């Protein structure tokens, strides 16, 4: 069960992070006034302590006084306040918080790469009559392939072994069972039930899964030009 929660959590957060991060990086690569300011702000969530991210969102998602529930009720999307940390929605909350906290990493990496794409490539594509969409598909994406390869790899490793975000969200909720991922389970076994052996076994299993999936990932996507 922990394996399932963990996989569900990592896959959905990684997909959302990459998509949102990629779009955000493309926006921030355009020229507009105040761009540097927005660039700075967008990276904030990644820099703050996880504890802060969690208390922030727990307050926003509070079922009685939270702003999110208030807005959703006011707009009429929901009729009764949602219990965001209850068993039905806690996974959704966890995914929202994690994506918010970690997508800036994707922005950072992709943006750094975007800035090194020679403008000549776009001009050439324009001369050849390529529209904005086909410029993105044929010029931008191939250029980003290497950085995306690394980003997806790192983020997968980090999301799969993410402990503090998940653990802190379970505190004082009563629904911790529904987001008990492998790292959390290993922690609980070791430090709450004092079964360090079982905890370490779980850590080794996690490591094994990581090695296996990394090897598979390299086999499937690694290009000969290397990284």
């Amino acid at each position, binding site marked *: 069960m922990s394996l399932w929660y963990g996989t569900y959590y990592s896959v959905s957060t990684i997909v959302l992070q990459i998509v949102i991060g990629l779009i955000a990086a493309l926006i921030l690569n355009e020229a*507009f006034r105040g761009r540097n300011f*927005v660039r700075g702000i967008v990276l904030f969530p990644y820099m703050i302590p996880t504890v802060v991210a969690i208390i922030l969102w727990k*307050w926003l998602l509070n079922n009685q006084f939270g702003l999110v529930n208030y807005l959703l009720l*006011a707009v009429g999307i929901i009729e009764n306040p949602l219990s965001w940390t209850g068993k039905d929605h806690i996974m959704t909350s966890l995914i929202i918080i994690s994506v918010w906290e970690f997508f800036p990493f994707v922005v950072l990496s992709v943006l750094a790469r975007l800035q090194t794409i020679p403008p000549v490539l776009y001009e050439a594509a324009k001369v050849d009559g390529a529209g904005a969409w086909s410029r993105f598909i044929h010029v931008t994406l191939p250029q980003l392939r290497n*950085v995306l390869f690394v980003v997806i790899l790192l983020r997968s490793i980090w999301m799969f072994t993410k*402990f503090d975000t998940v653990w802190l969200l379970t505190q004082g909720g009563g629904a911790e069972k529904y987001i008990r991922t492998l*790292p959390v389970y290993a922690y609980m076994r070791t430090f709450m039930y004092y079964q360090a052996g079982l905890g370490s076994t779980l850590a080794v299993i996690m490591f094994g899964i990581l090695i296996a999936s990394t090897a598979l990932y390299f086999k499937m996507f690694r290009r000969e030009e290397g990284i």
Partner: protein
Amino acid sequence: MNPKDTFLSVRGQAIYWSAAILLIFTAFPFFWMLSTSFKPLREIFVSPPYLLPKDFTLANFARLFEQTRFLTYFKNSLFVSSSAVVFTMAIATAGAYSLTRFKFYGREKIASLILFTYMFAPIMIVIPFYVLIKKIGIANTHLALIMAYTAFCLPFSLWLLRAFFQSIPLVLEEAALVDGATRLRAVVHVILPLALPGIIATAIFTFILAWNDYIFVRILITSDNLKTLSVGIADLHNATVIDWGMIMSGGMLITIPVLVFFIFIQRYLIAGWGTGAVKG
């Protein structure tokens, strides 16, 4: 106005709107924390909520300092993070120098092996680390924490500094050596000044990593007067009655040092990250 201009302005508008949405998505939670931390108790729970506090108050901060050991936690965080930075930087600077300047068997292997340790998330190393620390008998001390952070931050710092050192031309050093300087002198007077921006940026990264950590403190520290801010704030939230105003003000204060440092290194981030830490 020719058609191209209208096209550009539609495009410009789209960019502005999407940037605005992005800004709200990332910044609004912070704004809400800021706003809540200055609200008196009755305004915090009022419906409909006010965007800004009507009666601006510092009562939340006052409660934070009076009722909790915030100052103790703050001092602990500062001490542990700074010590970790000193140790990490001392080892990482020397290590990165040798990885870029000396030729020895397996140098590149060692470099990629360091990157490989990225795979070991804290949750995996913390269990054996805890067992070790217990055996040595330094569980529940700041020393254990500092060692943990140094071990944890080292790969990252080493990798980042290596990229900085690689960008400094060898010729400069050779010139100094030819002029009769010892290697130590060449490093101190030629290399370190040039690498200083990189060293500062790396030190700040290390500081933020240590400052933000939760898991090592949670596991290695049991006495309350040794706890750092992350755990201290998290524990406030575990109280039976949650004082949101106080928690938000605590959240504000723990975030400020990070953001100050962050603004300071921001220019290195966008420019240096892609070539440094990630791409290697």
